[in-house]
């Protein structure tokens, strides 16, 4: 009956990974609700960007303290996962520390993991202090109330618990402690158990081992509900990010066709529209399905660090706009649309949309299009492109620009300048 453990472990693993795969498919489906945009060009440059920005964390260190702590947690996370592989093999086959056949190299590995685990634990505690004690402003903007705040804390607690369990598991492993190599951290914790009986220590070791792997599986499944998805999506997000100059906005093709027709002197103004022609495309975006899939992936990738908002001139001066909130609201609406599809088989009109129900006109008109948010984002998210698409809908579909902007646009239309000056006076300056 020694197999019960192994079977339980296998079932746990299948359930844990199974749920994760199921939810991942939902995320992919939701992202694909976005409009098509071609980002298949320049694969080499894209790959290099991904290596540099996602793997190499090059934009994180722009804020050195947060950046270095983040690199420690990130490196720890990746490297300690080698240990998870051992746990899985041990769990499935009933072995104990199967990699220990590597001898001295194994001790070196585990020793490194222990030091990393300790550093991660320390970093995460510092993160918690920054958030809760120092109350760094960007973690306390108004969009960070409720779930976003709890989500951030949950992640920190998860990591604290997982790292502690890893160290505890090593500390209470009598055989491992007796070897007394590769235990630079856990040997001190082991001292605490010197008075305890062999059985007690053994039970603690088994419990820590099980809780560690269960914790990892829960954390894996927590990602779907959390801002922590960035640990996976940072990679495709940096790969597919915009490579053009930041000031270059897209030219809407649908508009180009119309403008060309308007400017064509041989066009027949009374011509009946082509019956086979597709209905005209909607200009701009009022809901998430009008955005492109890269913008939707951006929304899932955002980890709500708030660097964008801290750099936003509108937000700094107390305006309603927060680029982070733009991304969070886009994700909230996208998840709502996704749930609607889960429930009804296809999207049923729910009388809501991204514009107005989530993002208000006041927010998007406060933007100066300065690109500070785009520049700041450590994973190349582009909140500005969403703001502009929403503006396009407001202006071209609803004629709902602020009055002063309407005057500006009327002036451009009539005088060829945003002010009321006569086109014929354009060169007057040379004689003034």
């Amino acid at each position, binding site marked *: 009956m020694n197999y019960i453990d192994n079977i339980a472990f296998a079932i746990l693993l299948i359930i844990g990974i199974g749920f994760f795969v199921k939810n991942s498919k939902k995320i992919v489906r939701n992202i694909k609700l976005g409009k098509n945009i071609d980002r298949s060009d320049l694969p080499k440059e894209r790959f290099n960007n991904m290596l540099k920005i996602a793997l190499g964390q090059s934009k994180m260190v722009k804020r050195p303290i947060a950046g270095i702590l983040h690199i420690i947690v990130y490196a720890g996370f990746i490297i300690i996962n080698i240990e998870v592989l051992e746990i899985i093999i041990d769990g499935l086959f009933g072995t104990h520390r199967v990699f220990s056949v590597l001898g001295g190299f194994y001790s070196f590995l585990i020793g490194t993991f222990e030091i990393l685990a300790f550093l991660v634990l320390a970093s995460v505690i510092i993160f918690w202090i920054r958030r809760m004690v120092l109350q760094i402003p960007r973690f306390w903007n108004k969009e960070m109330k409720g779930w976003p705040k709890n989500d951030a804390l949950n992640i920190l607690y998860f990591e604290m618990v997982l790292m502690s369990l890893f160290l505890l598991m090593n500390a209470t492993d009598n055989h491992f402690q007796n070897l007394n190599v590769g235990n630079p951290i856990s040997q001190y914790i082991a001292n605490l158990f010197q008075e305890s009986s062999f059985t007690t220590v053994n039970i603690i070791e088994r419990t820590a081992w099980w809780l560690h792997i269960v914790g990892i599986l829960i954390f894996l499944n927590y990602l779907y509900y959390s801002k922590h998805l960035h640990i996976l999506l940072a990679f495709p997000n940096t790969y597919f990010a915009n490579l053009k100059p930041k000031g270059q906005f897209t030219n809407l093709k649908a508009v180009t066709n119309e403008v060309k027709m308007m400017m064509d002197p041989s066009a027949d103004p009374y011509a009946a529209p082509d019956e086979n022609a597709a209905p005209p495309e909607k200009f701009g975006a009022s809901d998430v399905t009008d955005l492109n899939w890269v913008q939707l992936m951006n929304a899932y990738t955002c980890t709500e660090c708030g660097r964008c908002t801290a750099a936003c001139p509108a937000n700094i001066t107390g305006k309603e706009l927060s680029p982070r909130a733009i991304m969070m609201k886009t994700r909230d609406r996208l998840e709502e649309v996704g749930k609607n599809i889960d429930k009804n088989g296809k999207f049923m009109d729910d009388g809501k949309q991204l514009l107005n129900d989530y993002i208000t006109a006041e927010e998007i008109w*406060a933007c100066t*299009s300065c690109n500070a948010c785009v520049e700041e984002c450590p994973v190349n998210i582009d909140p500005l492109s969403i703001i502009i698409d929403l503006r*396009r809908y407001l202006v071209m579909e609803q004629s709902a620009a602020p009055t002063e902007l309407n005057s*500006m646009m009327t002036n*451009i239309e009539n005088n060829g300048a945003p002010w009321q*000056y006569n086109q014929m006076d354009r060169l007057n300056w040379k004689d003034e």
Partner: protein
Amino acid sequence: MNVPTMAEMTAQGIQPDVLFWVGCAGSFDDRAKKITKAFVKILNKANVQFAVLGTEEGCTGDPAKRAGNEFLFQMHAMTNIEVLNAYEVKKIVTACPHCFNTLKNEYPELGGKYEVLHHTEFLKSLLDEGKITIEGGKFKGKRITFHDPCYLGRANDVYEAPRLLIEKLEAELVEMKRCKTNGLCCGAGGAQMFKDAEKGNKEINVERTEEALETKPNIIATGCPFCNTMITDGIKAKDQESNVEVMDIAELIANAEDL
């Protein structure tokens, strides 16, 4: 002032080396016109064969595009492109980062492909070619801070040309806390120039001006007519008009030489 138009040059059978795109602010705004004239003085001094479009120039469509009016933008873009292509324009220089960005990045897809330079890049190339020499003159030793226009800096990664020109004036270049990629917007971009700001607790231009004043400058230099207006307003709001001047890089160079 010698300011030939493309029409005049073409009539004489001359193809100028570069088109100076003046822009709406440079043509109509009283403050920006001074920048335009300063730049023309330098062009004439350096014997650059240039021309302007004059009454054939129209708004590039930038503010319309940033406001979300793609129709108005593309109509203006295509009209301008027809004019530019008719004159077989190859190279454009402009003193407005908004015109610069639009002409450089957004016109090519609509059929307007030109080499487009911001005037600070162009001045730097004149310097490199030895067509102008910049000496300290009256700005020697002055404290000058440079405000990065968003559409020049972050939007197009031009940070060094304006700074190099300031250094050539033998002035002391002092950087603000937020500069280059971290530069704070003046508050005018994205068509904000033409409307009141949304409700908040401060004007962006005041925030930026305060940052500039922290460097205790004699002069705040910019390379954009809209930034110039915003910072000048900020200086007025802070009652610093008698202590600090707001000047375009082209003005600094022209004034240094007393052109």
